[in-house]
């Protein structure tokens, strides 16, 4: 049995360190753009006005519902395949679809898709499908009633706990790759979601399923969304951040995700490698857990510090400011995800070609791709380094722009500019730290 690979997800390969000159370039660029934001950015809010976008496509009710139904079925089917593979498939993760399917394509892939295109997962999410079906069977709840409770947004605390549970599993637990471990995790997570929903109602899943919450927050910066009348709409990237709702827990949620990605980068550093290289099993898990908590705490502290400074400048409460400016961290979270996981998706992710022909590792060859061999040179280290550098730099610009827009919406221009000093400080710190983590030092 293969177990206990190094902690970070599907292990075995990590990127080369980012070249120093590239790091300097991106850091300098980010600092420069922050100055530009103070002086030269717009003086009136822009994003809210364009956040509705244009209607692109309206499916008639019949085909629309049919499509929804098909997507839900696909979601259920894939969920079933993952669970079955995890519990009953080959115990070697290289020969089992559940590791790469869950840790790479679901977790990383859907973050990219959500931030770029939109909240695709919402259409597939098997938990809402199961809860809806149960509600319908039990009491013949109608579609209108279902969509009404869908919009209630309670506090996100359960989602903070759920996403942290996953991130702990992925980044700290020593045997995250093992299909049976994935089976245990998925089963426990699913029981928690379904039990919670059966007690608290369907709306609970939308504020408690950490994955769904993350994908939906990331999709606020995406180019497409589906409105209340099930019309597909296009909008400028980033615009949706201006209308993102921020129930209690939103900022903490984003900070946990941001901190965990930072820990993932940190855990690949030669420093952490030296600390943990002769550890294994639960000792390794313990070290990683402590490291994860410390990095999440540090990342959060920087934000809390800045929000307190802002409160001093503007006279607003810290809760209000967190809710107002939390969404502008979303582009940084997306940028970190791209910078840290792009090569994992592009290189290791190719193993999915093999898995689709033989998902359970039983020697099947459903689509004739069973002996595909991974092209490790598909993207060169130079391309990877540029993707990382640009992701961090572009994420920084987007975050600064979103925060600036929010501040000119709230304050007169002069105060808006002053209120942004602490926020720019936060973002420069996150960006420079993010770049240093890519240095692998």
């Amino acid at each position, binding site marked *: 049995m293969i177990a206990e*690979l190094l902690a970070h997800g599907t292990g075995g*390969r990590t990127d080369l360190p980012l070249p120093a000159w590239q790091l300097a370039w991106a850091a*300098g660029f980010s600092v420069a753009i922050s100055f530009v934001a103070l002086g030269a950015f717009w003086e009136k809010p822009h994003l809210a006005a364009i956040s509705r976008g244009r209607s692109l496509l309206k499916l008639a009710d019949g085909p629309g519902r049919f499509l929804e139904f098909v997507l839900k079925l696909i979601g259920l089917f894939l969920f079933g395949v993952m669970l079955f593979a995890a519990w009953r498939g080959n115990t070697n993760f290289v020969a089992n679809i559940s590791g790469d399917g869950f840790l790479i394509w679901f977790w990383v892939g859907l973050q990219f898709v959500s931030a770029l295109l939109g909240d695709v997962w919402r259409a597939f999410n098997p938990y809402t499908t199961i809860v809806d079906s149960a509600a319908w069977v039990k009491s013949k709840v109608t579609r209108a009633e279902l969509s009404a409770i869908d919009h209630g947004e309670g506090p996100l605390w359960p989602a903070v706990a759920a996403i942290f549970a996953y991130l702990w599993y992925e980044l700290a637990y020593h045997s995250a790759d093992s299909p049976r471990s994935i089976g245990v995790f998925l089963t426990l997570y699913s029981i928690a979601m379904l039990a919670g929903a059966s007690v608290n109602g369907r709306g609970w899943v939308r504020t408690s399923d950490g994955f769904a919450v993350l994908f939906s927050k990331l999709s606020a910066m995406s180019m497409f969304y589906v409105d209340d009348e099930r019309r597909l709409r296009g909008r400028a990237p980033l615009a949706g951040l201006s209308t993102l709702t921020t129930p209690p827990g939103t900022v903490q949620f984003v900070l946990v995700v941001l901190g965990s990605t930072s820990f993932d980068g940190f855990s690949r550093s030669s420093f952490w*490698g030296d600390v943990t290289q002769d550890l294994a099993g639960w000792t390794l898990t313990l070290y990683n857990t402590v490291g994860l908590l410390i990095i999440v705490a540090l990342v959060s502290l920087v934000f809390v510090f800045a929000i307190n400074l802002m409160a001093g400048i503007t006279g607003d409460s810290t809760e209000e400011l967190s809710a107002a400016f939390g969404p502008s961290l979303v582009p940084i979270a997306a940028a970190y995800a791209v910078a840290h996981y792009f090569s994992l998706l592009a290189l290791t992710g190719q193993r999915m070609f093999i898995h689709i022909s033989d998902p359970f590792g039983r020697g099947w060859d459903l689509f004739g791709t069973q002996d595909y061999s991974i092209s490790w040179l598909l993207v060169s280290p130079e391309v990877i380094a540029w993707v990382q550098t640009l992701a961090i730099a572009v994420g920084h610009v987007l975050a600064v722009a979103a925060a600036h827009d929010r501040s000119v919406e709230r304050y007169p221009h002069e105060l808006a500019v002053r209120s942004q000093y602490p926020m720019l400080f936060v973002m*420069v710190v996150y960006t420079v730290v993010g770049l240093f983590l890519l240095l692998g030092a």
Partner: protein
Amino acid sequence: MNRFIALLLALALAAVSCSGDDTSGDAPRDPALPDGVDGVINLEVIDGEPTGGAQTVEFARGDQLRIELTGNSDEQVHVHAYDFYIEPVDGEGVLDFTALIPGTFEIELEDAGRLLVRMTVS
């Protein structure tokens, strides 16, 4: 405002200065290496533990490498991503390969998941 600008500049300078030196360069070839081999990784595994703990090694892309395994382990050794395996016979085995894939890779005792080497190919 001025203090803020100073802070930003300090951060930028810190970023640039910490990353200034580049120490890479062609190391002279070790005359003790066998013909046609650019680097050797010596691995001794006794009772499931690498002697001296896990090691960190660095090579250049295209290097011809050799892993020499000694000790008393009968466990498979796996070079990740390259996906080469050494099946030890009486604890010993040799693997010759060319470092064509850039990145940092783990070389492990496959069953126990014990890290033996972190190999960087740049």
